[in-house]
């Protein structure tokens, strides 16, 4: 496939030549030569604007993504074969505005409900959403004496003023998810693929939601430990993790690379697994026929 792709690019003549140019950081190129649809990495290489001012990310979020990187790639940046082949992009967004709506209740451990707004402008049209996760962490390291059960309640809101229909009442979609915080757990991932799928698929550029987190102590605990208040207000307002499949030509598609061989039995199981997450099936099927045609 490499040779054929190489031939196709060489046969493309001028188009390929203009693609080859982005790497020439030696001479700045004037605007007219710049090809339109280059992914962000090449645009920056092309413009030499690596130094463009950037907002600094949240340090805890950066720590989490560095840990994710170490589990997905080697020190030299070679992707490891142990991760899910369906996604080749993971994006972490921190909320732009967090307003605490109601104070937390120490006894039941309800966190102040938090109003979150995520701007998803960096998600490109060629990136298919496969999984969405709300990522909670604690403002400082605390350890529980035993497991804690939590309920996460999400109320998705229309943006305060939607230009399309300014008079439409704010609609909201409620979503509940239960999970358990074990001792010394640093990160809590709450899968919110279901409520996010329609929003991201409808190409929403920002998502507004209310998050309530109620954590109750495990009733099996000895009475003495039970009356110690559960200080969940130490939870930092969550970040949003999107697992995506970038279908652009420059992105690495693991299931097509010769290195990634699936055993027939595994591929059958793989198909069954796909039915568990229809989005993955759609995007994978969606990608496969076009690539086969090409």
């Amino acid at each position, binding site marked *: 496939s*490499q*040779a054929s792709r*190489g031939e196709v690019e060489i046969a493309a003549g001028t188009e390929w030549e203009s693609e080859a140019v982005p790497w020439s*950081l030696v001479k700045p190129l004037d605007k007219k030569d710049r090809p339109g649809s280059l*992914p*962000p*990495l090449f645009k*920056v290489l092309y413009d030499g604007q*690596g*130094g*463009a*001012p*950037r*907002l*600094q*990310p*949240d340090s805890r*979020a*950066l720590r989490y*993504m*560095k840990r*994710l*990187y170490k589990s*997905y*790639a080697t*020190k*030299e*940046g*070679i*992707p490891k074969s142990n991760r899910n082949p369906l996604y*080749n*992009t*993971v*994006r*972490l*967004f*921190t909320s732009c505005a967090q307003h605490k709506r109601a104070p937390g209740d120490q006894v039941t451990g309800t966190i102040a409900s938090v109003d979150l707004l995520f*701007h998803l*402008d*960096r998600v490109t049209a060629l990136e298919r959403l496969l999984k969405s996760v709300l990522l909670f962490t604690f403002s400082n390291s605390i350890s529980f004496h035993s497991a804690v059960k939590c309920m996460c309640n999400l109320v998705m809101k229309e943006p305060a003023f939607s230009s399309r229909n300014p008079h439409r009442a704010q609609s909201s979609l409620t979503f509940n998810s239960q999970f358990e915080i074990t001792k010394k757990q640093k990160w809590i991932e709450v899968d919110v693929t279901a409520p996010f799928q329609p929003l991201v698929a409808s190409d929403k550029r920002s998502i507004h939601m209310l998050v309530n987190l109620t954590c109750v102590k495990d009733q099996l605990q000895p009475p003495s430990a039970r009356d110690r208040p559960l200080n969940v207000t130490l939870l930092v307002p969550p970040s949003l993790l999107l697992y995506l499949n*970038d279908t652009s*030509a*420059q*992105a*690495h*598609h*693991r299931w097509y*690379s010769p*290195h990634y061989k699936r055993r027939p039995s595994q591929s059958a199981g793989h198909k069954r697994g796909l039915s568990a997450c229809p989005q993955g099936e759609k995007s994978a099927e969606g990608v496969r026929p076009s690539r086969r045609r090409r």
Partner: protein
Amino acid sequence: GQETIGLELHKPLVPASLNLSEYFKQFLFPQNECELHDFRLSFSQLKWDNWIVAPHRYNPRYCKGDCPRAGGHRYGSPVHTMVQNIIHEKLDSSVPRPSCVPAKYSPLSVLAIEPDGSIAYKEYEDMIATKCTCR
């Protein structure tokens, strides 16, 4: 027959005129034959470390060297490569010799900070040369 065997054993393996080093030269590959070379760079050298968080070191590797006349056996070159060589040598030297270029690549995982402060883990295709060919 013992005498003949004795005589045979004393016969020199290589013709006296051709000394050993000359004899073996015909089996050595040219010193600077087309092959893969390393080029380790860090994104801080390119001043991109303010937005590329990982990897710290990146070795895109590159292909360099002369293409042997019979490229097919080692480089998977098409017959066209040999034809181009013959044209260069016998018909028109303005036609260039075949070039030593990458034939296969591997992807690279990048952790980058986007302008809006979000963080992206992405895998880019064809970022590291893994095999050379003559074309």
